[in-house]
């Protein structure tokens, strides 16, 4: 198994952190992981993104040239990364913010009203975790438990009091596609 | 001069100085050596030689020495002092080294209050490379790169290092002294001693600017050179203590 994921949005939407969380969870499960922030020509164009690789075997190239999964948190990210998804890839759209139709019909597309759900829990800042929850349920690449444990390790001290909300956001994301576990 | 009047301090090696007749470096080396002997810190002192006529200072001082790149002695001394905070660390620099190529290093070492001592020899020109204009060359002074005399229109004005550094909060002791006659040499030694004592107390950066002569490049006899210094350099570079932290008495 080699999962190549791009998580893209505006700066401040927690895209880099979401990727780190995923990488951390993969590491806790003994998988090979890498995390790369935007680099090269990718830096331009109003998006922040990171590329995560999770694999059972050693990762040769940590670049994500042809993602199997893309999370999009804003329109520029959709326009930039949807065309790059490999055929049959998974596109997770934060439908609270991105309304545009996707032209490709060779993708598995999931709309997640992440901001709406997040606001109900506490604040739109949790939208990234709702998206991550959805991804966990849909793929099982890493388990909810690993992500929850990673959260405990990686949340900065000043955000620790938000831990229960973070977990809840993950669970609500999962609930969209089945039972949270 | 002073060389022949006293016995050799323990802190000077028997190597004969290579300096020109009447050059101030020999006198100033001896003053530093005497102070280190008197303070009994020879075995815990690390000196930093700079690039200029005094580049070979590591041969003459009988304690551990490092030789630094041109202008960088204060940075090298910073590295040493941060590793060995209980040792006595000093630099010995000329005016080209300190006030031209190494200006950033001296200003920042002073601003950081680096607990080192700087012996700054101002001889109003670049001695080693053959008497070119220095940042301390006086207006109208002839050098090999200001043959018609330093034009302030073209080359600007000399830098008064002591005054400039004294505006900073990091220095604990800054004084300008001269060696153009024996009473001044005596005062110069006192200032150098104060600077090292201040370093030993650990209260901040210390610097003694020593006005010195360069008869060879100035094209004068040694005695003429001292008179020239007194007449021309003293008015532009007034002697005195520019900074003395509490616990250090003002010069008498």
């Amino acid at each position, binding site marked *: 198994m080699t999962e190549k994921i791009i998580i893209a949005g505006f700066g401040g939407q927690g895209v880099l952190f979401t990727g780190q969380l995923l990488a951390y969870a993969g590491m806790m499960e003994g998988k090979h*992981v890498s995390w790369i922030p935007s*680099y090269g020509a990718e830096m331009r164009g109003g998006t922040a993104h990171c590329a995560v690789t999770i694999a059972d075997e050693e990762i040769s*190239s940590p670049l994500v040239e042809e993602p199997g999964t893309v999370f999009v948190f804003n329109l520029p990210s959709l326009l930039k990364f949807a065309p790059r998804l490999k055929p049959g890839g998974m596109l997770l759209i934060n439908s609270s913010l991105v309304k545009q139709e996707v032209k490709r019909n060779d993708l598995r597309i999931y709309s997640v009203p992440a901001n709406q759900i997040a606001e109900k829990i506490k604040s739109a800042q949790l939208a990234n975790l709702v998206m991550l929850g959805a991804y966990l349920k849909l793929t099982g690449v890493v388990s909810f438990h690993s992500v929850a444990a990673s959260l405990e390790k990686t949340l900065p001290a000043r955000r620790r009091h938000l831990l229960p909300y973070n977990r809840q956001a993950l669970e609500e994301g999962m609930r969209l596609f089945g039972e949270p576990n | 001069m002073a060389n022949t009047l006293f016995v050799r301090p323990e802190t000077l090696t028997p190597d004969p100085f290579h300096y020109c007749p009447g050059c101030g470096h020999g006198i100033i080396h001896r003053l530093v050596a005497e102070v280190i002997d008197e303070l009994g810190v020879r075995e815990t002192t690390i000196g930093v030689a700079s690039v200029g006529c005094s580049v070979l200072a590591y041969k003459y001082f009988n304690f551990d020495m*490092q030789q630094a*790149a041109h202008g960088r002695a204060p940075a090298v001394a910073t*590295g*040493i002092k941060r590793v060995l905070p209980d040792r006595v660390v000093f630099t010995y620099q000329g005016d080209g080294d300190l006030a031209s190529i190494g200006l950033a290093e001296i200003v*920042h070492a002073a601003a950081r209050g680096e607990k080192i001592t700087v012996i700054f020899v101002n001889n109003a020109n670049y001695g080693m490379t053959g008497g070119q204009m220095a940042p301390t060359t006086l207006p109208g002074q002839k050098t090999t790169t200001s043959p018609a005399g330093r034009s302030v229109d073209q080359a600007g004005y000399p830098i008064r290092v002591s005054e400039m550094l004294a505006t900073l909060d990091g220095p604990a002791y800054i004084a300008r002294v001269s060696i153009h006659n024996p009473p001044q040499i005596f005062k110069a030694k006192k200032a150098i001693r104060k600077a090292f004592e201040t370093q030993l107390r650990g209260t901040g950066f210390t610097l003694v600017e020593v006005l010195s002569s360069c008869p060879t490049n100035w094209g004068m006899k040694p005695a003429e050179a001292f008179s020239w210094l007194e007449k021309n350099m003293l008015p532009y570079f007034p002697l005195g203590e520019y900074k003395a932290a509490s616990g250090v008495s003002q010069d008498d």
Partner: protein
Amino acid sequence: MKILMKGNEAIGEAAVLAGCRYFFGYPITPQTELLEYLSRRLPEAGGVFLQAESEIAAINMVYGAAGAGARVMTSSSGPGLSLKQEGISFLAAAELPCVIVNVMRGGPGLGGIQPSQADYFQATRGGGHGDYRLPVLAPACVQEMVDLTVRAFTLADQYRTPVMILADGLLGQMMEPVELPAAPVNELPAKPWATTGCKGRQKNIINTLYLNPEELEAVNQRLQEKFAAITKKEARAEEYLVENADIIVVAFGIVARIAKEAVKVAHAQGIRAGLVRPVTLWPFPEKILAAAAARAKAVLTVEMNAGQMIEDVRLAVGNERVHFYGRMGGMVPTSKAILEQIRKIGGIVRGKYAVRPA
């Protein structure tokens, strides 16, 4: 236990575990996380972090601290490394051990802040004035940022030389799991030559001035002997699928990993491709490369520059079979593009040499 770390931070932590307690540096992207990390970490470890007024000051502080016997490090990128070169020459001449990190960015001039390998020549040819070289280690993953940093300090002390870690902005910024050394270095090798105060011994002098040419030639000879010993003993490379390879790809650092992916895919497509990744750039692992390429029909060098390591590759295997692919200015080659080069070269040499199916 593994932890997830950024490359720049991994170098910092590894340095501390290797017994480095002094760091002098100046901010420049993309290595700044290293400064930031050590500004927290070194005081904790009883060491000193000092932000110098410039890269020039920083390298000369390293000179002072190394001369005082400490394990010491500095880091920078592109323009900062140019400023450090006079100091590095002095360090090499005075035989002072220290570690210098270059997290490369695109140049020339102010260039950009994106990853690059454009400082290969500067790093591997000494960089400053005078006849000298210094060991240059090129990590390709965050774990190697750790391992090679520890190694760099060992080599520095063993040979009394500055050692450079040559990384790039991508390696510096990426995160991967790392295993930190279990036992931190607490005891440093004795340095009887250091200037620590002459109590109970003759005075020590750290100096690079030799006005007598006979003496200076002798000093140079001694240095050259040391460089020859390092060349003989310390060259390292990683090899991948080189046995029976028709095409050998040569790349270092992050590019080698991207190339590895291309080599893997090429193999799956029936092209016998292999990879040699120099881990030491100086000394260049020319024997390893020459042996790996002995039966290959083509050698493809891939770099993030206009072609610098290729000169060392040619020295190792001859001009004839060597091809080049590079990106510049912060552009990162993709594995697809490298694969395309491999296929193209496969096509060229097929007529001439008959490339066999894997």
